[in-house]
């Protein structure tokens, strides 16, 4: 489909977006063929229009941040993509309808919801059920959960609903990544993870980067900016921004960090401990590693103690100085 035909199809209010797409030089198909097509998708709940003529194409290998405030239509868009909502217009994943051909389409999709479902079933049963439906190995899911820092053997008999927020998130991520999904749809996937698990999570995403398309939803761009190479913002059911972002930071990249502090402060020490930092003997110098995509979050944490910090150094693993504060 050419830009001219798209111009003819979309409502007038979407024209600036197309101009932005042209201006930004982003091809409609990232890798030659679009994986996901939204064609004039609209969804209305009791006369309230939640999605309004969405036109989108997402290519294989793209990592898309879907951002927008509450009620912007992110969850509705995701549910349309999962074939869970009936809607006007057409949604296609690799040319197939997620509604009419749901088993074939959903076999290619890994989904992590924002709010873990209150499942009373034991963790082991959830893993077995998911693995049996998706035709994958329970061992692979368990191994992924282990990498994220969750011992499945220990929680296997526990009801899923009784786990902590982070543990639930790890299980859901492991189930989504534990199969050969070509499309990963994640709603604030790292929100409940501790820094170490986030680091591993980014590595896991990096491993899938070449073979999967990722759609990551969040309220705020800074939560997911470092994970993605394209940003789509929704507002009142319309796409109000569709742009590429700098993609210089590798998902698997790590930054060596050194922090010097003026004096010891238990709260800061505890926060750095959570990031697996190690202190010098006098407790005035700290060393550790920060996952590349997590650097904004890390700097956000350190900004709370800015009066305490004497110097802060972040360097890429190869030794090149990245940022000095």
């Amino acid at each position: 489909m050419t830009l001219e035909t798209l111009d003819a199809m979309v409502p007038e209010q979407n024209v600036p977006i197309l101009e932005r797409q042209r201006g930004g030089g982003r091809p409609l198909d990232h890798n030659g063929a679009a994986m996901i097509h939204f064609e004039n998708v609209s969804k209305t709940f009791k006369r309230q229009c939640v999605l309004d003529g969405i036109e989108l194409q997402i290519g294989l290998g793209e990592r898309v941040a879907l951002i927008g405030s509450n009620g912007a239509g992110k969850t509705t868009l995701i549910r349309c993509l999962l074939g869970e909502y009936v809607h006007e217009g057409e949604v296609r994943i690799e040319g197939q309808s997620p509604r009419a051909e749901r088993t074939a389409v959903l076999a290619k999709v890994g989904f992590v919801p924002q709010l873990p479902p209150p499942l009373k079933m034991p963790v082991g049963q959830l893993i077995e059920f998911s693995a049996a439906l998706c035709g994958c190995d329970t061992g692979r899911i368990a191994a992924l959960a282990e990498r994220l820092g969750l011992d499945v053997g220990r929680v296997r008999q526990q009801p899923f609903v009784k786990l902590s927020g982070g543990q639930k998130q790890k299980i859901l991520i492991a189930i989504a990544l534990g199969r050969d999904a070509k499309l990963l749809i994640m709603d604030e996937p790292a929100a409940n993870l501790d820094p170490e698990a986030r680091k591993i999570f980014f590595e896991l995403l990096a491993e899938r980067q070449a073979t999967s398309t990722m759609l990551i939803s969040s309220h705020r761009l800074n939560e997911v900016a470092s994970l993605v190479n394209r940003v789509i913002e929704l507002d009142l059911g319309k796409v109000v921004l569709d742009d590429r972002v700098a993609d210089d930071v590798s998902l698997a990249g790590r930054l060596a960090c050194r922090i010097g502090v003026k004096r010891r402060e238990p709260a800061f020490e505890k926060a750095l401990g959570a990031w697996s930092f190690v202190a010098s003997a006098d407790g005035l110098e700290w060393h550790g590693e920060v996952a590349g995509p997590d650097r904004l979050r890390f700097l956000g944490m350190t900004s709370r103690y800015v009066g305490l910090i004497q110097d802060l150094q972040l360097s890429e693993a190869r030794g090149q100085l990245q940022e000095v504060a």
Partner: protein
Amino acid sequence: MKSLWLTARLDIAESLRARWFGIYCLIFGGLVALLFAFGLTESRVLGFIGLSRLLVTFIQLTMAILPIFVLITTVRSVAGDREAGVFEYLLSLPVGLASWFWGKMLGRYLVIFLPVFVAMAAAVAWALIRGIEVPWGMFGYYTLLIAVMGWCFLGIGMLVSALARSTDVAQGMAFLVWLTLLLFLDLILLGVMIQGRIAPEIAVGFALVNPLQVFRTAALALFDPQLIVLGPSAFVILDTFGARGYQLFALAYPTLLGVICAGSGYWVFRRGDLP
């Protein structure tokens, strides 16, 4: 087919963990125990040596309890799961909608039928051990009647769950359905007949459309083949169906009603928003 069994197994496991299932088993197990403790003793006093009195009492009580129990627990769990976001997640997995809906129905059906059947079968087993005569024909027919009753009200429950978008509405609808069927057993029918607005045949026709009344009459028919307790209505029923015919009708009609309701529920579920 694999997804259907997986969904059925999941639903069975969920039900076995649920509190309602414990109460459900306790009620029917307790009923049999109570009937043995009191009913059978009384039967001996009155000269009964068989199990038929216990079975009749059991089936009458089952008819009072099972429909509302099935309706409320089904809509609570199905509509509740949807409201809580369970559907959003589980239906993002590659499971067909038919496998999901009918798998849930199958799992739940086994869970509601088996405890009632096991309670009745336990009574029979105990009777055999004690050397009490077992009316096998009655036991077999009541087993079928319970199986059909469970299916019929489960079908209605699944339809209500598909139509209602929230647990509260689903529970309200389920309760209303049960109350309507209950009122049409006697009260409303008697009222309209007394006022002379409809012909007695039509009133009896209404009664025969009501699955609760169908079960009630069928259970009585085995114990009282002339349906004397029903009064003049018995003539219409027996003239239309015959005793044997009515027994078959009491199995076929609720089964069909269950299929129609469940089928309509599936149609609504498949065409609408899933979560």
